């Protein structure tokens, strides 16, 4: 694969020229606009809905409510607990109550305003601790606790000799993809089926949930991936899919729905806010003996993936460190806050912020330093997790730390050699002079599970057809920007020796690829494309072998030729495949995993990756403003199939980790989001992103089909605690909450 490792994106030119069709760009003759009416209350009983006002507005073609949902009334990824439209009770601000289809977005806006919903307000549950305590009446038939999981392992009596403990809090982060939720639904003539073009992370899961709600068999709902403008977890759950299809079926016309940014903040799940208490017991030299931990995840109104997020958190409580004894308790609970679910890092972001804070406390308690304490405890292949699972993957934790430490520190002093004020905290606000600023350095190290866990049959499907020297590759893998389309071509070229690869449309006419999440597609869909290509190659070698009287087992691909490794035969692949069609389909399944038992024991995860981050920050101590100067990172990638893409994932993931550390938070008050816009939900700009220096650790993993581990999530996970540790280092003061706000630093 080395020859094509510099391959650039097949969709690159279309994207830079603006011709790439995102889901929001798709249109059809005679289409209508769809729009959603949402609850203004966090918890209320619906006592009446009068839609007649909307019908009276010229241009309105459909108004639908819960009463119009022909199939199942609810959907959900793990448990089907979320209504397509609220019918009796609304449980969060922004919950869909009705939808309309009309000729113009402004007509839709007026139609929504004309729908009268009468609410009887109910006391909202906004404190997740009250859900844990059981001191608030149930807000959902399934109860207020989505999941409780303990992990109990080893000697529970271990106490000290060194004990450090702390409480950590993470605010609610938004995925904030740029490409807002959008879809186009086209009804079949006769209305007994529908075609949906949508930006999603998992076409087949959407198909299953949509079909159930529409009362159709799955094959009557055909999905094609609309161009995806980023995902980061927020497109794993259903948002507008069912509504769009329903409006199209109602009107018999194509319907486009497109969320506004404000609606997007209300209309998809977020990263769980979380409170974590941890206590570490260690030897006098800092070796961890036992950990105790308690997690409370606020899942918001509906379950989404909360139970899986919780499991990720509790099973990663020890971090990438050896630990034989543990007592962990975790809750994912229901509240009347916005629903939370998947976001890059999926529960491990929360756990890592806590365990890395603990490592710094431990270093201080035993008179060590952040690097030594982590090296002392670093886990390696063959070690046990607190679930009892043995790490069988390549586990270069110590190497991640050492290679990160060896990367150069910034060559610029505070304010830079050019004394450019934009380098200082506060940036263009010209708030600081060099004398007001102190520099700090901090560390974060992480372990992240890859692929799905807990006995889930996780697989991906690919079909490859070789015809006249051209490989046609088909899969349902959602390309969300990560670059799977690039490596799919690389794999086909290198395995089959072809020059031309055609990627066929990404849709539901082939088997599932699973979700583009959990850092899994390089491994899973990469494995599937590789597997299908290998099957095709076997057939090709059989043909060539037969034609030339050579044992197919002696044949190999060399460049773009089929060659006899024990002879002189050399046939170009184009010639060898002329006039024939060889087609093969392959499903890649990862090894089976197990459920956790009551004590939290079991081989629940598939594989793991590791990473270290070192952050350098400049802090204006008096104003509490921060400039992240540099992040150094060494990441365990297995094998970098496309180094440029890997660097892109690392830098992009770090940007999201930096955002969580110093600015990104959905601010809520009593269940109401106060900053549902890009004016007030702040994302890092060019002037907020630090320099990133990277060392790729390439130790091909024998368990991975291509030796390559997923790389998307680890950069987001430990960059956050590294930045916070660096701020603490500059400040000499405790900080145990993210995002760190200016007042947390200076008041």
């Amino acid at each position: 694969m080395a020859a094509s490792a510099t391959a650039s994106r097949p969709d690159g030119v279309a994207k830079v020229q603006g011709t790439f069709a995102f889901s929001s760009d798709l249109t059809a003759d005679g289409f209508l606009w769809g729009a959603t009416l949402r609850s203004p209350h966090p918890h209320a009983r619906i006592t009446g809905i009068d839609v007649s006002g909307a019908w009276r507005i010229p241009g309105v073609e459909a108004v639908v409510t819960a009463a119009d949902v022909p199939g199942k009334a609810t959907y959900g990824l793990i448990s089907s607990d979320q209504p397509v439209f609220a019918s009796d009770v609304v449980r969060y601000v922004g919950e869909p109550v009705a939808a309309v289809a009309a000729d113009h977005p402004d007509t839709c806006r007026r139609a929504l305003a004309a729908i009268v919903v009468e609410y009887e307000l109910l006391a909202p549950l906004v404190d997740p601790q009250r859900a844990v305590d059981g001191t608030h009446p149930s807000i959902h038939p399934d109860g207020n606790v989505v999941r409780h999981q303990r992990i109990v392992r080893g000697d529970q009596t271990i106490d000290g000799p060194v004990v450090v403990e702390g409480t950590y809090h993470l605010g609610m982060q938004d995925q904030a993809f740029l490409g807002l939720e959008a879809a186009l639904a086209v009804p079949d003539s006769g209305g007994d089926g529908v075609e949906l073009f949508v930006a999603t992370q998992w076409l087949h899961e959407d198909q299953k949930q949509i079909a159930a709600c529409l009362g159709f068999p799955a094959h009557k709902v055909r999905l094609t991936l609309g161009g995806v403008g980023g995902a980061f977890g927020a497109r794993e759950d259903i948002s507008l899919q069912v509504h769009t299809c329903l409006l199209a079926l109602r009107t018999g016309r194509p319907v486009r729905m497109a969320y506004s940014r404000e609606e997007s903040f209300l209309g998809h799940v977020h990263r769980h806010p979380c409170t974590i208490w941890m206590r570490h017991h260690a030897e006098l030299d800092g070796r961890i003996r036992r950990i105790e931990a308690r997690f409370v995840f606020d899942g918001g109104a509906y379950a989404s993936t909360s139970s899986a997020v919780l499991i990720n958190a509790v099973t990663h409580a020890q971090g990438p460190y050896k630990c034989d004894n543990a007592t962990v308790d975790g809750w994912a609970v229901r509240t009347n806050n916005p629903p939370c679910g998947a976001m890059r890092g999926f529960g491990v972001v929360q756990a890592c912020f806590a365990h890395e804070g603990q490592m710094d406390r431990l270093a201080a308690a035993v008179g060590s330093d952040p690097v030594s304490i982590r090296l002392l405890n670093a886990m390696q292949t063959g070690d046990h997790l607190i679930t009892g699972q043995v790490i069988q993957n390549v586990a270069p934790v110590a190497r991640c730390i050492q290679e990160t430490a060896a990367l150069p520190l910034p060559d610029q002093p505070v304010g830079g050699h050019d004394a450019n004020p934009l380098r200082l905290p506060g940036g263009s606000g010209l708030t600081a002079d060099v004398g007001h600023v102190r520099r700090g350095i901090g560390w974060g190290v992480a372990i992240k599970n890859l692929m799905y866990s807990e006995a889930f049959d996780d697989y991906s499907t690919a079909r490859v057809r070789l015809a006249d020297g051209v490989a046609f590759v088909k899969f349902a893998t959602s390309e969300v920007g990560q670059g799977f389309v690039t490596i799919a071509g690389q794999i086909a070229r290198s395995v089959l020796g072809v020059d031309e690869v055609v990627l066929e449309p990404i849709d539901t006419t082939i088997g599932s690829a699973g979700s583009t999440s959990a850092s899994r597609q390089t491994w899973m869909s990469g494995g599937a494309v590789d597997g299908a290509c290998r099957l095709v190659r076997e057939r090709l070698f059989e043909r060539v072998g037969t034609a030339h009287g050579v044992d197919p087992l002696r044949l190999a691909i060399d460049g773009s030729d089929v060659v006899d490794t024990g002879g002189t035969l050399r046939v170009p692949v184009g010639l060898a495949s002329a006039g024939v069609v060889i087609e093969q389909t392959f499903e890649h399944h990862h090894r089976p995993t197990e459920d956790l038992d009551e004590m939290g024991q079991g081989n629940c995860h598939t594989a793991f990756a590791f990473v270290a981050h070192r952050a350098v920050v400049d802090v204006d101590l008096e104003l509490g403003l921060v400039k992240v100067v540099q992040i150094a990172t060494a990441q365990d990638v297995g094998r970098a199939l496309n180094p440029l893409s890997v660097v892109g994932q690392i830098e992009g993931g770090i940007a999201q980790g930096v955002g969580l550390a110093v600015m990104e938070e959905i601010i809520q008050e009593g269940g109401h989001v106060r900053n549902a816009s890009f004016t007030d939900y702040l994302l890092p700009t060019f002037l907020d992103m630090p320099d990133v220096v990277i060392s790729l650790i390439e130790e091909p993993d024998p368990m991975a089909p291509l030796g390559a581990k997923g790389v998307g999530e680890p950069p987001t996970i430990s960059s956050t605690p590294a930045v916070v540790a660096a701020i603490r280092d500059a400040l000499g003061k405790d900080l145990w909450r993210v995002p760190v706000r200016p007042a947390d630093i200076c008041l």
Partner: protein
Amino acid sequence: MSDPAGTDLGSNQAYVLHVNGQGRDVRDAWLGESLLFVLRERLGLMGSKGACEQGECGSCSVLVDGALVCSCLVLAAAAQGQQIVTIEGVAPVGSPSDVQQAFVDAGAVQCGFCTPGLIMATHSLLERSPEPTEMEIREELSGNICRCTGYGRIIDAVQRVAVARRSQVAP
């Protein structure tokens, strides 16, 4: 209107926009529509992207009379008589500009949603400042949010273009 150079549009009257060198009629439009909406939904120019509707992301950047602005904040009906250049006007389909090609080559594109806006902003930057420093690049592009890349490869792409252009004009 007394002055022939000015315009007075009553409800849903037609008006003309000058886009990428062509006069384009806009008919039956609601006059509250933004230039972004009109470009996309009435003129079929889908390259400009909307991601925030309030000028906080730069995805919809276009040139109006040579100035880089957010098309979501331009009232389309008030943009008559102004020269508008969109991403579609940068280079013919299939023949990317040097900036566009550099974005592809440098790995500056992931999901690509912010990309058209960044291409417009980069062309505008290099026009005014052919050899920008890294800090200048960061400040001049700070109105364009990218959620995928962390910006590193984009800065690299801009620098590649600056270097390539310099070597072209060098003797």
